């Protein structure tokens, strides 16, 4: 047998060589959470931002910090509070009496990796400032516009337990996150290792294995990954099934979906599938890649009705139902 896309495959094999190394280095610090690590890489490679949801103490901050360290990138953690102002985030102009001029004081958003901790604790104006920066990848302070560093990855966290005194992200802004990842507790064995690692019996130091330039190069290579029309149609079927379930024989979920996924979901599903294929070191996308990222791409984009909430049906249940119904090419 002879590969038609041999060149692409070889290139991907070469460019994705750092992936295993990177995952290995991260796993020295972060025990378990392979799912989260993989999704962080998908976000990084597909140039998307990630919304993390999980109870406190699941190494969300540590994972991002470790990733930044492994890539030799600048990391900033911003704790979102109700009294936070947009200027605290993007920066402001300060009057310099000595020079009689306004000077720009850049905010913490000028970094490669931003961890927006508990994003729903701050009011809408701060959320908007961050989400605008995420979308435009530039910030305007006064009259001057500054490009943000590349790679630029925002990881926002939400605590699913405490909802009092929070400002839930509007659907339009949630849609700007490429993935929404739900993190679960580690297994018993993993937690044992975490315990040992943290009480000092084990000391694992990690080193930098990739540079931001490697990531940018990997992004360019990832774009060359071949996606067959059948896969493209499969992605469209999944997204359209969230909008018109009846057309796909999903009458049972029609009443449960308030509105379906946006075209941004289609784009992100394709990008996510490509990034997943890259991580798996393949030069082409297979249905497995689409299935692997479907939940993370769609769960925050499919809004459920009150009826679904009353029946305790989540968007994940609906997406799973759709995936089980749509024929794989």
């Amino acid at each position, binding site marked *: *047998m*002879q*590969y*038609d*896309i041999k060149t692409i*495959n070889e290139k991907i094999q070469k460019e994705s060589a750092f992936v295993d190394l990177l995952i290995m280095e991260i796993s020295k610090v972060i025990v378990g959470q392979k799912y989260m690590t993989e999704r962080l890489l998908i976000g990084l490679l597909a140039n998307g931002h990630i919304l993390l949801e999980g109870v406190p103490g699941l190494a969300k901050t540590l994972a991002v910090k470790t990733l930044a360290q492994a890539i030799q990138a600048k990391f900033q953690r911003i704790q979102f509070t109700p009294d936070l102002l947009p200027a605290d985030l993007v920066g402001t102009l300060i009057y310099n009496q000595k020079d009689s001029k306004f000077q720009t004081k850049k905010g913490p958003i000028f970094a490669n990796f931003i961890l927006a901790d508990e994003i729903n604790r701050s009011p809408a104006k701060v959320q908007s400032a961050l989400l605008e920066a995420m979308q435009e990848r530039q910030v305007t302070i006064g009259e001057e516009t500054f490009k943000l560093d590349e790679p630029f990855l925002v990881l926002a966290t939400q605590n699913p337990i405490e909802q009092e005194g929070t400002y839930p992200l509007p659907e339009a802004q949630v849609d700007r996150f490429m993935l929404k990842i739900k993190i679960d507790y580690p297994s018993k064995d993993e937690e044992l290792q975490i315990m040992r690692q943290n009480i000092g019996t084990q000391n694992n130091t990690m080193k930098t294995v990739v540079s931001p330039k490697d990531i940018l190069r990997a992004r360019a290579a990832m774009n060359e990954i*071949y996606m*067959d029309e*059948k*896969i493209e149609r499969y992605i469209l079927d999944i997204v359209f099934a969230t909008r018109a379930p009846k057309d796909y024989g999903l009458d049972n979920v029609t009443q449960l979906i308030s509105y379906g996924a946006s075209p941004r979901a289609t784009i992100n599903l394709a990008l996510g599938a490509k990034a997943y294929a890259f991580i798996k070191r*393949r*030069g*082409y*996308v*297979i*249905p*497995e890649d689409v*299935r692997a990222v479907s939940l993370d791409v769609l769960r925050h984009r499919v809004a459920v009705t009150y009826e679904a909430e009353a029946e305790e049906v989540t968007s994940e249940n609906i997406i799973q139902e759709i*995936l*089980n*119904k*749509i*024929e*794989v*090419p």
Partner: protein
Amino acid sequence: MKSYMKYKVWSKEHGTWRKFLYTLYSLLLTLYFLFFSVSSAQANEGTAAHVSVSATTDSSHITIGDWFHYTINVRHPSGVTILWKQNADSLGACTIVQQDSVSKTESSGFVTEQKSFTLSKYDAGTITIPPFTVGYTTTGDTTIHEAESEPVTIQVATVAVDTTQGIKDIKPPLSLPWTWKEIAMYAGILLLLCVLAYLVYYYMKKRRKPEEIVVEEKPKVPPHVTALVQLRELEAERIWQRGEIKLFYSKATEILRSYFEGRFGITALEMTTDEIMNQLQHVTLPKEIKKEINEMLTSADFVKFAKFAPTPADNDEFIPRAIKIVEATKPVVENPVTEGKEAAVNV
């Protein structure tokens, strides 16, 4: 003097006349008054004789709270209309318990109208039922005249209390006997409930057992038979020979996945290769067969999604390999015991 004498003579003559006139005037006046009083008396006497009202009771001595009947009889000539008064709830000091309607009897040109009241009294002592008044009119006269009965006296005695005995409790309420009206009402309700219960039962029974629709059941074709037929048809279509290699592999894997769905009960059409292989891990199959399935599906994925161009030999071999997998995994049915031996036969 002469004139005085004339006057005296005249006076003497005229005084006799005056006396006479005075006497006559008095006589006429007396006659007039006598006539007027006689005719008036005659007129009154004549009217009273027309209508007579009498009141009677069935008992003149009752015990406190007892019921007694008070009957009014009005006798009058025909042509007289009696106007009975409406009595609300009492007659004098007596309470009206019940009052009957007026009944009429006629004999010898006289009509007798009768009305009965059932009365009671809750105070002891002597009571007087006041005269009962009726109005009446005569033919050709719209004037309402009145006639009334004599008052009736009743003695109401209290209940003698034997103070030597102790105080007794109040008597319980008396139970009234069932009336036909009540019996009919309760019977109607019971009947209605029975009808409702039957209707509910009938509805539930009909709902539970929907009308059986006789559908001619087609004999179910085993999945391996369908798969083998479809694979042979695909081979005969010679798709890959026409350059439609991707279509050929898509159709071939679809037939195989449909077969797995029917044979192993997994939703293989909606599964990726990895998911199908994971599901087949739970199926008892030889390792070589599982390996062959994995290889075939994976190589087909390369063709379908990675622009992979297999050799003509690979294409030629694909259908026979698929048939081999179907043959190897199709169910085996044991034949009934023949001549003491059990023979396994492929269906």
